[in-house]
């Protein structure tokens, strides 16, 4: 198992190299002069030249990439052009709200989607199934900010049940933290829940048509143990796979959700960096998010053996 994990980790290296090369090249894809772009429209030629020199833009391309990558691997993602602070520090300051939002959203998704998917598969073809499927299609079509603003309008503005915006750390005031997290995690979780509920239903239906389920029924097993003990476990692999892939949607959603709810996380940092054309920050955030995404999907691959003992890693 350990050697398998190590080999899989090694296999992600080429992917991550390409990701990093791509992110590094972003500055040059636009076709313009990066130094002029970084300096902004009003900069004089002298200022542009100064930026070019400090960033080492006069060096050959690949050597600049290697320098950037070596520094990144040592935790140095460069300096923000706007605040002059190290990018790593900026990201680390913002990690907590984003991590918390991701965790609460995942809880919402799991609590909402898996029971719904099981229910729909169990009631396949009936009204309940229809309702869940309609939820799945609609939930997948409504943009996060629409859900978010409708939620804010009713729960915060009209009924004054929840705070409108902002963030409180759970380590300072836990109830307040929960209040702030309800709407963001619901808004962000809805799209993902729709996706996961759909796959849960499909995967459960596939399993429920198997012979051993018929046998289980024939020996008089009740619906509940049949669904939860026999079917769900065998249906788990596709569900976990989709959850892993959905992390990409989640990361994208974090950017929007943090903007709508004024949560000071990495997503908000990304948006601010874009509006200020703060390229070192943009590159740093992209690199970190992509790295997380690749690792999550590696973890998903490895988790298969937990759900299905037939899958062994050697």
């Amino acid at each position: 198992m350990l050697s398998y994990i190590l080999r899989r980790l090694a296999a992600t290296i080429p992917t991550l190299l390409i990701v990093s090369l791509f992110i590094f090249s972003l500055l040059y894809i636009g076709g313009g002069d990066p130094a002029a772009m970084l300096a902004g429209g009003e900069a004089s030629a002298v200022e542009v030249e100064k930026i070019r020199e400090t960033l080492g833009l006069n060096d050959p391309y690949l050597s600049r990439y290697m320098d950037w990558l070596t520094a990144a691997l040592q935790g140095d993602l460069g300096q923000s052009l706007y605040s002059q602070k190290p990018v790593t520090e900026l990201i680390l300051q913002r990690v907590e709200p984003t991590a918390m939002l991701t965790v609460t959203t995942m809880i919402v998704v799991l609590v909402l989607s898996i029971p719904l998917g099981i229910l729909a598969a169990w009631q396949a073809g009936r009204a309940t199934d229809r309702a869940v499927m309609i939820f799945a299609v609609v939930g997948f079509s409504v943009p996060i900010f629409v859900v978010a603003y409708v939620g804010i309008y009713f729960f915060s503005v009209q009924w004054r049940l929840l705070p409108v915006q902002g963030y409180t750390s759970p380590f300072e005031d836990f109830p307040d933290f929960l209040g702030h997290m309800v709407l963001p995690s619901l808004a962000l979780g809805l799209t993902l829940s729709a996706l996961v509920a759909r796959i849960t239903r499909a995967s459960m239906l596939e399993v429920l048509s198997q012979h051993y389920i018929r046998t289980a029924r024939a020996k008089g097993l009740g619906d509940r143990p049949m669904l939860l003990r026999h079917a769900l476990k065998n249906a788990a692999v596709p569900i976990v796979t989709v959850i892993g892939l959905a992390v990409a949607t989640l990361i994208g959603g974090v950017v929007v959700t943090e903007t709508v709810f004024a949560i000071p996380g990495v997503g908000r940092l990304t948006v601010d960096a874009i509006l200020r054309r703060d390229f070192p920050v943009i590159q740093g955030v992209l690199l970190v998010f992509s790295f997380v995404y690749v690792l999550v999907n590696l973890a998903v691959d490895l988790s298969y053996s937990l759900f299905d003992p037939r899958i062994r890693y050697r």
Partner: protein
Amino acid sequence: MTDTANPPVPATPGRLRVMLRRHPTILWGSGILGLVLLLAVLAPVAFTADPRQVFPLDRLKPPTGAHWFGTDMLGRDIYSRTVYGARISLIVGFSVAACSVAAGLAIGLVAGSNRWADAVLMRILDGVMSIPAVLLAIALMAVSGAGIGNVILALTVAETPGVARLVRGVVLSLREQPFIEAAVASGSRYGSILLRHMLPNTVAPLLVQGTYVCAAAMLLEAVLSFIGAGTPPDVPSWGNMMAEGRAYFAIAPQIILFPGLLLSLTVLAVNLIGDGLRDALDPRLARQH
């Protein structure tokens, strides 16, 4: 009896009609999308005002007879802006779908045919796909600057890898099929096998994937514009309208609500078409979903 060369073709019940009856979601989706499309095409005559015209005295008005959807913080007519916004959304959705299907098809066919190209292309696509689509599009927009063309380009880059992977998968599985082996054995050149036997088999999955790409592109365009990295601020796109309405949401929810509603409805329509097409074109999947 001399005209036996052209026997009358019996009127088939119409595969399209059968398909629509069996999969009513396609009909629903097309109906809604058709309405939005009609509204967008007829925007200048669809009872609209100039979407950029300001009525300073009518700012932040709720829906009335004169302004069906109310007015925004500058007193612009939200109904007109929403109708014109449909144009942007549809143009972006359809263009991105067409461009990424074309690019993905080309890349996928090459990757599926040549082992060396496959190894190189798939590594690159894996890399691009490990950057979440929204972030990739945001980054590309940050480099290239606001503009509809740039939005289409950025979203195409983000969506193409998925299409390419799909095509490659189809080509690889087709290569094992007896009819392809037969074509090879009978001496067909690879190019003609690719065009005459493989290409037609990619049409159905591409149609389905294309609709999903279209829906995703419309959502992503709104996201990009919403966070200020999409269409230029003076363009009345749905994302821009919702971004403008943020500060006034508590007093004038209509600024966000109407474009948001229309966006949801349009995306829903496209997704319904996609679901219906998938079920209709792939009976194996229809059983599961």
